[in-house]
Protein backbone atom coordinates (compact mmCIF):
# COMPACT_ATOMS: atom_id res chain seq x y z
CA UNK A 1 0.00 0.00 0.00
CA UNK A 2 1.27 3.48 -0.80
CA UNK A 3 2.05 6.01 1.85
CA UNK A 4 -0.88 8.04 0.67
CA UNK A 5 -3.18 5.02 0.86
CA UNK A 6 -2.05 4.29 4.38
CA UNK A 7 -2.61 7.88 5.46
CA UNK A 8 -6.05 7.94 3.89
CA UNK A 9 -6.94 4.71 5.64
CA UNK A 10 -5.77 6.02 8.98
CA UNK A 11 -7.72 9.22 8.65
CA UNK A 12 -10.85 7.23 7.75
CA UNK A 13 -10.24 5.20 10.91
CA UNK A 14 -10.03 8.37 12.99
CA UNK A 15 -13.17 9.85 11.42
CA UNK A 16 -15.06 6.65 12.12
CA UNK A 17 -14.24 6.67 15.78
CA UNK A 18 -15.06 10.33 16.14
CA UNK A 19 -18.64 9.14 15.57
CA UNK A 20 -18.36 6.79 18.54
CA UNK A 21 -16.53 9.39 20.63
CA UNK A 22 -13.40 7.32 20.63
CA UNK A 23 -14.95 4.05 21.70
CA UNK A 24 -13.81 1.01 19.77
CA UNK A 25 -15.46 -1.70 21.87
CA UNK A 26 -19.23 -2.21 21.88
CA UNK A 27 -20.80 -2.68 25.32
CA UNK A 28 -23.11 -5.44 24.13
CA UNK A 29 -22.38 -8.77 22.52
CA UNK A 30 -23.58 -8.35 18.97
CA UNK A 31 -22.90 -10.51 15.94
CA UNK A 32 -23.07 -9.40 12.33
CA UNK A 33 -26.41 -11.16 11.96
CA UNK A 34 -27.96 -9.96 15.22
CA UNK A 35 -31.35 -8.50 14.31
CA UNK A 36 -32.64 -5.38 16.03
CA UNK A 37 -36.00 -3.74 16.25
CA UNK A 38 -37.15 -0.35 17.50
CA UNK A 39 -38.10 -0.29 21.18
CA UNK A 40 -40.14 1.97 23.42
CA UNK A 41 -37.21 3.92 24.83
CA UNK A 42 -35.84 7.19 23.53
CA UNK A 43 -32.20 7.75 22.76
CA UNK A 44 -30.40 10.05 25.14
CA UNK A 45 -29.39 13.57 24.14
CA UNK A 46 -26.18 14.28 22.26
CA UNK A 47 -26.25 11.04 20.28
CA UNK A 48 -24.41 10.80 17.02
CA UNK A 49 -26.42 11.67 13.94
CA UNK A 50 -26.03 8.03 12.90
CA UNK A 51 -28.12 6.92 15.88
CA UNK A 52 -31.11 8.69 14.38
CA UNK A 53 -30.47 6.96 11.06
CA UNK A 54 -30.26 3.57 12.79
CA UNK A 55 -33.57 4.16 14.57
CA UNK A 56 -35.28 5.32 11.39
CA UNK A 57 -34.11 2.18 9.56
CA UNK A 58 -35.21 -0.10 12.39
CA UNK A 59 -38.66 1.53 12.56
CA UNK A 60 -39.19 0.56 8.92
CA UNK A 61 -38.40 -3.08 9.60
CA UNK A 62 -36.10 -5.21 11.69
CA UNK A 63 -32.50 -4.78 10.59
CA UNK A 64 -29.35 -6.71 11.26
CA UNK A 65 -26.11 -5.16 12.46
CA UNK A 66 -24.48 -5.92 9.11
CA UNK A 67 -27.26 -4.29 7.15
CA UNK A 68 -27.17 -1.16 9.32
CA UNK A 69 -23.41 -0.91 8.77
CA UNK A 70 -23.83 -1.28 5.03
CA UNK A 71 -26.59 1.31 4.80
CA UNK A 72 -24.76 3.81 6.98
CA UNK A 73 -21.47 3.22 5.19
CA UNK A 74 -19.74 2.77 8.54
CA UNK A 75 -17.59 -0.11 9.74
CA UNK A 76 -19.39 -2.84 11.63
CA UNK A 77 -17.63 -2.26 14.93
CA UNK A 78 -18.53 1.45 14.99
CA UNK A 79 -22.16 0.57 14.32
CA UNK A 80 -22.07 -1.98 17.15
CA UNK A 81 -20.93 0.77 19.53
CA UNK A 82 -23.85 3.00 18.51
CA UNK A 83 -26.34 0.11 18.61
CA UNK A 84 -25.13 -0.64 22.15
CA UNK A 85 -25.97 2.93 23.17
CA UNK A 86 -29.45 2.54 21.72
CA UNK A 87 -29.93 -0.81 23.47
CA UNK A 88 -28.97 0.82 26.77
CA UNK A 89 -31.58 3.51 26.16
CA UNK A 90 -34.21 0.93 25.21
CA UNK A 91 -34.57 2.62 21.84
CA UNK A 92 -33.58 -0.66 20.21
CA UNK A 93 -34.33 -4.15 21.42
CA UNK A 94 -33.16 -7.60 20.37
CA UNK A 95 -36.27 -9.56 19.37
CA UNK A 96 -36.29 -13.23 20.25
CA UNK A 97 -36.96 -15.88 17.66
CA UNK A 98 -38.80 -19.12 18.27
CA UNK A 99 -36.56 -21.20 20.44
CA UNK A 100 -37.23 -24.47 18.61
CA UNK A 101 -35.74 -22.97 15.48
CA UNK A 102 -32.69 -21.73 17.34
CA UNK A 103 -29.32 -22.35 15.79
CA UNK A 104 -27.26 -23.71 18.64
CA UNK A 105 -24.08 -22.08 19.84
CA UNK A 106 -21.12 -23.13 17.74
CA UNK A 107 -23.04 -25.72 15.77
CA UNK A 108 -24.98 -25.55 12.58
CA UNK A 109 -28.72 -25.34 12.19
CA UNK A 110 -30.76 -28.44 12.99
CA UNK A 111 -31.75 -30.91 10.27
CA UNK A 112 -35.38 -29.90 10.79
CA UNK A 113 -34.58 -26.23 10.17
CA UNK A 114 -32.48 -27.06 7.10
CA UNK A 115 -35.26 -29.21 5.71
CA UNK A 116 -37.66 -26.27 6.15
CA UNK A 117 -35.23 -23.97 4.35
CA UNK A 118 -34.82 -26.44 1.51
CA UNK A 119 -38.57 -26.83 1.06
CA UNK A 120 -39.13 -23.07 1.18
CA UNK A 121 -36.37 -22.39 -1.34
CA UNK A 122 -37.90 -24.90 -3.73
CA UNK A 123 -41.30 -23.21 -3.39
CA UNK A 124 -39.77 -19.77 -3.83
CA UNK A 125 -37.83 -20.79 -6.95
CA UNK A 126 -39.62 -23.73 -8.56
CA UNK A 127 -37.38 -23.36 -11.63
CA UNK A 128 -34.13 -23.47 -9.66
CA UNK A 129 -31.54 -25.64 -11.35
CA UNK A 130 -31.53 -29.07 -9.75
CA UNK A 131 -27.99 -30.23 -9.14
CA UNK A 132 -27.33 -33.87 -8.34
CA UNK A 133 -25.86 -34.46 -4.91
CA UNK A 134 -22.26 -35.57 -4.77
CA UNK A 135 -21.06 -38.65 -2.91
Amino acid at each position, binding site marked *: MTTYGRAAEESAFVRTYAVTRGRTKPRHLLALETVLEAGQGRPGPAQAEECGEILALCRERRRSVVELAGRLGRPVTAVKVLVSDLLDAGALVVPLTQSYADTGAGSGPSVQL*LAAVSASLKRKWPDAVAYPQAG
Partner: protein
Amino acid sequence: MPSPIPRPDDPSTVSPHSQAGAPTVLKIVIAGGFGAGKTTAVGAVSEITPLSTEEYLTEASADVDSLAGLASKRTTTVAFDFGRLSLPDAPVPLELFLFGTPGQDRFVDLWYDLSRGAVGAVVLVDTRRLESSFTPVSFFEDIGLPLVVAVNQFDGAHPYHPEQVRAALELPAAVPVVTCDARDTNHVAGVLLALVDHAVNCAATTNRAGHAPSTTLQDV
Protein backbone atom coordinates in the same frame (compact mmCIF):
# COMPACT_ATOMS: atom_id res chain seq x y z
CA MET B 1 -10.85 -11.96 16.82
CA PRO B 2 -14.08 -13.89 16.52
CA SER B 3 -16.85 -11.99 18.16
CA PRO B 4 -18.99 -13.83 20.68
CA ILE B 5 -22.23 -15.56 19.96
CA PRO B 6 -25.09 -13.06 20.09
CA ARG B 7 -26.56 -13.61 23.48
CA PRO B 8 -28.17 -10.62 25.11
CA ASP B 9 -26.55 -10.64 28.53
CA ASP B 10 -28.86 -8.00 29.88
CA PRO B 11 -32.50 -9.15 30.01
CA SER B 12 -33.71 -5.56 29.70
CA THR B 13 -32.42 -5.43 26.14
CA VAL B 14 -34.68 -8.27 25.10
CA SER B 15 -38.02 -7.11 23.91
CA PRO B 16 -40.70 -8.32 26.34
CA HIS B 17 -43.48 -7.57 23.90
CA SER B 18 -41.80 -8.54 20.67
CA GLN B 19 -44.48 -9.37 18.18
CA ALA B 20 -44.52 -12.96 17.07
CA GLY B 21 -42.62 -13.74 13.95
CA ALA B 22 -39.16 -12.36 14.56
CA PRO B 23 -37.43 -14.22 11.74
CA THR B 24 -34.95 -16.98 12.31
CA VAL B 25 -31.78 -15.93 10.55
CA LEU B 26 -29.61 -18.37 8.66
CA LYS B 27 -26.25 -17.41 7.21
CA ILE B 28 -24.64 -18.56 4.00
CA VAL B 29 -21.10 -17.55 3.12
CA ILE B 30 -20.17 -17.00 -0.52
CA ALA B 31 -16.40 -16.87 -0.85
CA GLY B 32 -14.24 -16.51 -3.90
CA GLY B 33 -11.34 -14.72 -5.44
CA PHE B 34 -11.39 -11.24 -6.87
CA GLY B 35 -13.76 -11.09 -9.82
CA ALA B 36 -15.19 -14.59 -9.28
CA GLY B 37 -18.71 -13.14 -9.26
CA LYS B 38 -19.56 -13.04 -5.55
CA THR B 39 -21.44 -9.74 -5.67
CA THR B 40 -23.27 -10.85 -8.80
CA ALA B 41 -24.30 -14.12 -7.15
CA VAL B 42 -25.51 -12.36 -4.00
CA GLY B 43 -27.44 -9.86 -6.12
CA ALA B 44 -29.07 -12.62 -8.18
CA VAL B 45 -31.10 -13.86 -5.21
CA SER B 46 -31.03 -11.02 -2.68
CA GLU B 47 -34.14 -8.94 -2.08
CA ILE B 48 -31.99 -5.88 -1.50
CA THR B 49 -29.22 -4.48 -3.63
CA PRO B 50 -26.07 -6.05 -2.21
CA LEU B 51 -24.63 -3.77 0.44
CA SER B 52 -20.91 -3.30 0.64
CA THR B 53 -20.05 -3.42 4.32
CA GLU B 54 -16.75 -2.62 5.96
CA GLU B 55 -15.11 -3.95 9.05
CA TYR B 56 -11.76 -3.30 10.61
CA LEU B 57 -9.44 -6.22 11.07
CA THR B 58 -6.37 -6.24 13.20
CA GLU B 59 -3.58 -8.15 11.64
CA ALA B 60 0.11 -8.70 11.96
CA SER B 61 1.50 -6.40 9.34
CA ALA B 62 4.63 -8.42 8.55
CA ASP B 63 2.58 -11.15 6.92
CA VAL B 64 0.81 -9.05 4.37
CA ASP B 65 2.97 -6.20 3.22
CA SER B 66 6.54 -5.22 2.77
CA LEU B 67 7.03 -3.73 6.22
CA ALA B 68 8.93 -6.85 7.22
CA GLY B 69 10.07 -6.89 10.78
CA LEU B 70 7.46 -4.49 12.05
CA ALA B 71 6.07 -6.51 14.89
CA SER B 72 3.15 -4.30 15.84
CA LYS B 73 -0.35 -5.06 14.67
CA ARG B 74 -2.18 -2.67 12.48
CA THR B 75 -5.76 -2.20 11.47
CA THR B 76 -6.96 -2.66 7.92
CA THR B 77 -10.32 -2.48 6.31
CA VAL B 78 -12.04 -5.50 4.86
CA ALA B 79 -15.10 -5.09 2.69
CA PHE B 80 -17.69 -7.76 2.14
CA ASP B 81 -21.09 -7.93 0.49
CA PHE B 82 -24.35 -8.48 2.28
CA GLY B 83 -27.67 -9.51 0.84
CA ARG B 84 -30.76 -11.09 2.31
CA LEU B 85 -33.87 -12.90 1.26
CA SER B 86 -36.91 -13.93 3.20
CA LEU B 87 -38.76 -17.23 3.04
CA PRO B 88 -42.15 -16.07 4.27
CA ASP B 89 -44.10 -19.25 3.64
CA ALA B 90 -41.78 -21.38 5.74
CA PRO B 91 -43.33 -22.87 8.90
CA VAL B 92 -41.45 -20.21 10.85
CA PRO B 93 -40.39 -16.89 9.32
CA LEU B 94 -36.92 -17.46 7.92
CA GLU B 95 -34.40 -15.05 6.52
CA LEU B 96 -31.28 -16.07 4.67
CA PHE B 97 -28.33 -13.73 5.06
CA LEU B 98 -25.79 -13.95 2.30
CA PHE B 99 -22.23 -12.82 2.88
CA GLY B 100 -19.93 -12.41 -0.09
CA THR B 101 -16.35 -12.41 1.11
CA PRO B 102 -12.95 -12.15 -0.52
CA GLY B 103 -10.82 -15.25 -0.77
CA GLN B 104 -7.49 -14.13 0.67
CA ASP B 105 -6.24 -15.82 3.81
CA ARG B 106 -5.83 -12.53 5.62
CA PHE B 107 -9.61 -12.53 5.96
CA VAL B 108 -9.66 -15.71 8.02
CA ASP B 109 -10.87 -13.83 11.12
CA LEU B 110 -13.85 -12.57 9.17
CA TRP B 111 -14.56 -16.08 7.87
CA TYR B 112 -14.69 -17.38 11.44
CA ASP B 113 -17.26 -14.71 12.28
CA LEU B 114 -19.34 -15.43 9.20
CA SER B 115 -19.12 -19.21 9.59
CA ARG B 116 -20.32 -19.42 13.17
CA GLY B 117 -23.73 -21.07 13.07
CA ALA B 118 -23.87 -20.79 9.29
CA VAL B 119 -25.66 -23.24 7.01
CA GLY B 120 -22.51 -23.58 4.95
CA ALA B 121 -20.31 -21.95 2.37
CA VAL B 122 -20.30 -21.65 -1.39
CA VAL B 123 -16.85 -21.21 -2.90
CA LEU B 124 -17.35 -19.50 -6.23
CA VAL B 125 -14.66 -20.49 -8.69
CA ASP B 126 -13.38 -18.73 -11.78
CA THR B 127 -11.48 -21.49 -13.63
CA ARG B 128 -9.11 -18.88 -15.05
CA ARG B 129 -7.98 -18.13 -11.48
CA LEU B 130 -8.36 -21.48 -9.83
CA GLU B 131 -5.53 -20.86 -7.38
CA SER B 132 -7.53 -18.21 -5.53
CA SER B 133 -10.00 -20.93 -4.48
CA PHE B 134 -7.55 -23.09 -2.53
CA THR B 135 -7.49 -20.97 0.62
CA PRO B 136 -11.26 -20.68 1.18
CA VAL B 137 -11.82 -24.35 0.25
CA SER B 138 -9.30 -25.61 2.78
CA PHE B 139 -10.52 -23.16 5.43
CA PHE B 140 -14.14 -24.29 5.27
CA GLU B 141 -13.08 -27.95 5.07
CA ASP B 142 -10.87 -27.53 8.13
CA ILE B 143 -13.61 -26.03 10.28
CA GLY B 144 -16.11 -28.64 9.10
CA LEU B 145 -18.55 -26.22 7.49
CA PRO B 146 -20.67 -27.78 4.72
CA LEU B 147 -19.16 -26.63 1.45
CA VAL B 148 -20.27 -26.50 -2.16
CA VAL B 149 -17.92 -25.48 -4.96
CA ALA B 150 -19.73 -23.56 -7.70
CA VAL B 151 -17.88 -22.98 -10.96
CA ASN B 152 -19.01 -19.67 -12.43
CA GLN B 153 -19.14 -20.22 -16.20
CA PHE B 154 -17.79 -17.04 -17.66
CA ASP B 155 -18.39 -16.33 -21.31
CA GLY B 156 -15.27 -17.25 -23.21
CA ALA B 157 -13.73 -19.30 -20.42
CA HIS B 158 -12.99 -22.92 -21.16
CA PRO B 159 -15.96 -24.96 -19.91
CA TYR B 160 -14.23 -27.40 -17.59
CA HIS B 161 -16.17 -30.40 -16.38
CA PRO B 162 -16.98 -30.24 -12.65
CA GLU B 163 -14.94 -33.40 -12.11
CA GLN B 164 -11.89 -31.69 -13.61
CA VAL B 165 -12.34 -28.85 -11.12
CA ARG B 166 -12.80 -31.40 -8.31
CA ALA B 167 -9.51 -33.05 -9.26
CA ALA B 168 -7.67 -29.74 -9.56
CA LEU B 169 -8.89 -28.59 -6.13
CA GLU B 170 -8.34 -32.06 -4.63
CA LEU B 171 -11.87 -32.10 -3.27
CA PRO B 172 -13.23 -35.18 -1.53
CA ALA B 173 -16.09 -36.98 -3.24
CA ALA B 174 -18.57 -35.74 -0.65
CA VAL B 175 -18.18 -32.06 -1.64
CA PRO B 176 -20.64 -31.16 -4.40
CA VAL B 177 -19.12 -29.38 -7.41
CA VAL B 178 -21.63 -27.60 -9.64
CA THR B 179 -21.46 -25.17 -12.52
CA CYS B 180 -23.56 -22.05 -12.63
CA ASP B 181 -24.08 -18.67 -14.20
CA ALA B 182 -23.82 -16.27 -11.27
CA ARG B 183 -26.07 -13.77 -13.08
CA ASP B 184 -28.97 -16.22 -13.28
CA THR B 185 -31.35 -16.31 -10.33
CA ASN B 186 -32.39 -19.91 -10.95
CA HIS B 187 -28.77 -21.00 -11.14
CA VAL B 188 -27.80 -19.28 -7.87
CA ALA B 189 -30.97 -20.53 -6.20
CA GLY B 190 -30.00 -24.02 -7.35
CA VAL B 191 -26.54 -23.58 -5.82
CA LEU B 192 -28.09 -22.47 -2.52
CA LEU B 193 -30.38 -25.49 -2.62
CA ALA B 194 -27.43 -27.79 -3.32
CA LEU B 195 -25.70 -26.30 -0.28
CA VAL B 196 -28.73 -26.63 2.01
CA ASP B 197 -29.32 -30.22 0.91
CA HIS B 198 -25.63 -30.99 1.35
CA ALA B 199 -25.81 -29.46 4.84
CA VAL B 200 -28.75 -31.76 5.64
CA ASN B 201 -26.64 -34.73 4.59
CA CYS B 202 -23.68 -33.49 6.63
CA ALA B 203 -25.84 -32.91 9.70
CA ALA B 204 -27.38 -36.34 9.35
CA THR B 205 -24.10 -38.21 8.99
CA THR B 206 -21.71 -36.29 11.19
CA ASN B 207 -21.92 -34.51 14.49
CA ARG B 208 -20.57 -31.07 14.03
CA ALA B 209 -19.01 -29.00 16.79
CA GLY B 210 -18.56 -31.87 19.18
CA HIS B 211 -22.19 -32.54 19.82
CA ALA B 212 -22.97 -35.79 21.55
CA PRO B 213 -23.43 -38.54 19.01
CA SER B 214 -27.02 -39.29 18.26
CA THR B 215 -28.04 -42.79 17.41
CA THR B 216 -29.07 -43.28 13.84
CA LEU B 217 -30.74 -46.24 12.26
CA GLN B 218 -27.46 -47.31 10.72
CA ASP B 219 -25.89 -47.50 14.15
CA VAL B 220 -28.36 -50.01 15.50
